[in-house]
């Protein structure tokens, strides 16, 4: 187990290096001069432009810029935002909690609803409840998040007035000992639901397929033959053994939700990391983009590691080697 963990952690280093290099390379070849944005847009003093380029090393040859960037990262320094003049680590630390809260809430909704729907589908396989749920899942998978978000906002905020349309709320509690403020629950509902619908369909389809597979196993058939209650068989015997593929999908989805919350954050003015990165791209605030994407990649890797560890816990036949 410890050997497995050590190998995985060591394996992260080349992955992160590759990620960092790809991010840096893409941003480097991106058209658009950060100095022109920083110097004031349409009207910029040429002296100020030159000073900004020199100050941020934007005139340096590409290899020097790249090595300088790697050197900073090796010292744990994500750099300073061109635009805000603040350390990127602070900017990422401010925005990341909102994204994590949103993604985890969405995942919980998707997991509970998706597995529940998968159970009902599997229990009524090839009958109308299964068809209805499968159709509904397909619709959810097909709909763009942006559209779902706007429609939910129009219905539940504008029309019915049950929930706030936008934002994080102003009066959420702070986590003691930190500067992190939690969102107000009513503000979380619509964004979390929007994001959950994005992965709910996937979870339902995988849960259904996995459960159908398990439900064909002899030990399940013998449980039914012994007269065990169907609900008990589904929940206690089948579900646990069907969880490995479901956990895989949830793990991948969590990582995707962390990175893919951009549209939802944009629609609902959610102050998360996705929105920060997109803004950074528009403003060519390269250190913010690099730091933010790096952080999301690291989260992706950690989530994958946790999923691998979960396998052994869920199915003792799987050994981590």
């Amino acid at each position, binding site marked *: 187990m410890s050997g497995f963990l050590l190998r995985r952690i060591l394996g992260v280093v080349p992955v992160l290096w590759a990620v960092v290099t790809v991010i840096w390379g893409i941003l480097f070849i991106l058209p658009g001069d950060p100095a*022109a944005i920083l110097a004031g847009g349409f009207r910029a003093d040429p002296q100020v432009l030159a000073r900004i380029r020199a100050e941020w090393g934007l005139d340096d040859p590409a290899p020097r810029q790249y090595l300088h960037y790697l050197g900073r990262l090796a010292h744990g320094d994500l750099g300073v935002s061109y635009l805000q003049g603040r350390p990127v680590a602070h900017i990422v630390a401010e925005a990341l909690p909102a994204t994590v809260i949103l993604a985890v809430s969405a995942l919980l909704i998707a997991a509970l609803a998706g597995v529940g729907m998968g159970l009902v589908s599997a229990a009524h396989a090839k009958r109308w409840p299964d068809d209805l749920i499968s159709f509904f899942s397909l619709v959810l998978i097909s709909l763009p998040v942006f559209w779902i978000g706007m429609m939910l906002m129009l*219905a539940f905020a504008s029309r019915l007035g049950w929930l706030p349309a936008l934002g994080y*709320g102003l009066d959420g509690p702070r986590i003691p000992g930190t500067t992190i403020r939690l969102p107000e629950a009513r503000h979380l509902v619509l964004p979390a639901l929007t994001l959950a619908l994005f992965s709910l369909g996937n979870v339902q389809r995988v849960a259904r397929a996995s459960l159908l597979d398990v439900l064909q196993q002899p030990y399940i058939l013998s449980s039914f033959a012994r007269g065990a209650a169907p609900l008990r068989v589904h929940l206690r015997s089948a579900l646990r053994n069907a969880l490995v593929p479901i956990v895989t999908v949830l793990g991948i989805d969590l990582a995707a939700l962390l990175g893919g919350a951009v549209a939802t954050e944009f*629609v609902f*003015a959610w102050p998360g990391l996705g929105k920060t990165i997109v803004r950074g791209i528009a403003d060519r605030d390269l250190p913010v983009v690099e730091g933010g994407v790096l952080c999301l990649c690291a989260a992706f890797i950690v989530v994958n590691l946790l999923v691998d560890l979960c396998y052994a816990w869920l199915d003792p036949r799987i050994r981590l080697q």
Partner: protein
Amino acid sequence: MRLRRALGLVALVVLPGGLCRCQAPHADKPRAEQVLRMRMRENPPDIDPASSADSLSDRINLAVHDGLVDFDPVSLEVVPAVAQSWEYSPDGQEITFHLRPGVRFHNGRVLTSADVVYSFTRLLDPKVGAKRKEILEAIRGADAFGTGKAASVEGIQPLDAQTVRITLARPLPHFLQLLATPAAAIVPKEVYGDPAKGYLAQPVGCGPFRVSRWERSSVMELSAFGDYYGGRAKLDRIQVRFIENPAGAMEEYRRGGLDYMDEMVGSESSIARELPQDYRKGPMLGSFYFGFNLARPPFKGNVSLRKALNYAVDRKSLCEQTFEGTLTPAHGILAPGTPGYDPDLKGYEYDPARARELLAQAGYPEGKGFKAIDLWVNNNQKLLEAAQKVQADLQAVGIPVRVKAVDFATFLQALQGTPETPGEALFYRYGWNADYPDPDAFLYWLLHSRNIGPAGNIGRYSNPKVDRLLDQARGLVRMEERIPLYREAELIAVEEDAAWLFLADYTQRVLIKPYVKGVVLCPLGSMRIPLDRLWLEGGPAPGKP
């Protein structure tokens, strides 16, 4: 029954037209708590008045900071602010400012002439890298200080704690106007001298509001400053919510979560019909045009071609149909309301036949031999529609144009180039808003060859006669003597040189709830709506955002 309810809910979700605008009946009495909720597209990127150069930061800076003087939002005349009075020397090169007694910064300290000297010196300090340092460059000794040849700026002298004298190296008739721009704010040294730049998180000024809360990407709260020299603002607080999604912001406004916003999404004529009491429109000193790169073919040295394009475009239809009347057709460079605006300037009427003639004179009869060029626009639906409309008009006379929509950073890079090297874009959309109400704010920056490149003259227009007229006008004090010079320069650039494709003048449009009183639209832009003069009367109780 359940099915019907479910269907009803689905209908609500699917049919976006089913919107309601629930508002409590207005009761015309001032509210107990005066909180204005406004939207900004995003976080103000840089709230150091010396280094900011964007409208979002300026909006906050104008609420937090004050300068020696300010603009009257209606007449645009320069009015006292931190300075209660001033007098000019007979040659117009020395201005002595008398500071208002008892002006306090938000940290409680009394403002003195030393703060004026510090703030102006800081703006000129090359280490600070101020983006608008040109507003003080006419001060004597500014150049020597900027190049490190002097330790201080000779022309900024405190006479006593309440008096400061500014000496100009040369007369600059609009110098007072420049001092009313946000960059000329007076800031306290003990805060803005901080090498850790704590002021970027907690700015301190002497303006009517102080920043009391700032959660980046979420909300900023400005609270009325009790010791404001102009009297405490009527609003207790201003909640500035950062909402990037304009459609979401519109919905929030409709449902009553916002009181004020200055960016609308969708058809503006529909919004004006839907919210007639909220929709306000006013003039703006701003110009919208499509620029030519005059340093490169095909526009370089080909006046007939440039004129042909000007005759080929139907401005009236562009303004009335594409922009739904939110822009007005332009005949020249100066926007109506700018001193020196010439209502008799003919400009170019829509005349496709004349355009074809000129195109032939330009060497492209019926467009033959004209190689299609890109028309660059930054990603924006309205701009894209405008570009497509111009593309169609030009195509009709035989000028092939491809619309190239890119993000703003790419767009800017393609346009600007350097003072020595022209940018890549040959034909591009451009816009210019005046920072101060003077013809110089348009003509000097857009036409003078001294400003070729990123400084403003992106089209690289150069005409020695126009340069001379602009320099001459800058050296005169009396507006009535300056105006003929500016008019002549404008006439040359428009009718002789066809410096760019003249299109339209901006207007400003905002949505403000009818219960917000004291609203004045300033032609210098919505960021200059004086927030300290607003109050709320009646209307729905402030709900949670």
